[in-house]
């Protein structure tokens, strides 16, 4: 049984590279039972989206300034 620390680390890695089949399976099994790790995944994805919006907004704010 992998821990939440371990699974959330894999969830994080999975956002930046393709996990191995074994890892993906472990993550999927764990997420079925664990709300917090599931929240972590959703929130990490949300943060990615927010980061992109942030840089877009920064860009247009600076564009307007100049």
């Amino acid at each position, binding site marked *: 049984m992998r821990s939440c620390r*371990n699974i959330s680390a894999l969830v994080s890695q999975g956002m*930046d590279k393709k996990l191995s089949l074994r890892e993906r399976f472990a993550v999927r099994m764990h997420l079925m039972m664990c709300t917090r790790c599931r*929240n972590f995944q959703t929130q990490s994805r949300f*943060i990615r989206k927010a980061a992109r919006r942030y840089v877009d907004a920064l860009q247009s704010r*600076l564009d307007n300034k100049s």
Partner: protein
Amino acid sequence: MTASLLLTEQTLAAQRPVLFRYALLQLRDSALADDAVQETLLAAWQSAAGFEGKAGLRTWLIGILKHKIADHWRRSAREAVAPDVDRTDDGEAEEDDYFISSGHWNGGPKAWADPEAALKQQEFWAIYEVCQNNLPPKMANVFMLRELVGLDADEVCREAELSEANYWVIMHRARLRLRECLEIRWFNNTLQDKRHA
């Protein structure tokens, strides 16, 4: 010489958005960023033979861009204000208290009410910025190269001189920290009536 054949204007132009975002984060001025990118692409095009194709086109271009940005800081004699994120190492040795010793969450991520709605609110972006700025400098740099500039993980590793293992640890922590900060400062508050601080 085959490498230089690959460096058409289109190939270079395709790298423009990433280079621009990189320059923008450093220079914080879109006109300056645009100039720096323009000069970079020109320099790259002129010295296409210098590209060996080993490290990847983007890495090579970012190397040139860094020089252009450094030139800018030198010219404007504002080096004191130039962001210097590479030096500090705090945050790496930090013991994480996100998990208890068994590896279970210590507290841990709660469900967030309507994150999509947050994206539309200006107050949220102020909080987001605070949370992002609260990351330790090196962690912030890695996070930004990945999520704001849009480099791949291996490019970030080269850029920030990190081992792959180190990269995974830093990004994991950055996400843990950011989500905790957003939860405390935004999503917890929105459950009650939000007061303006």
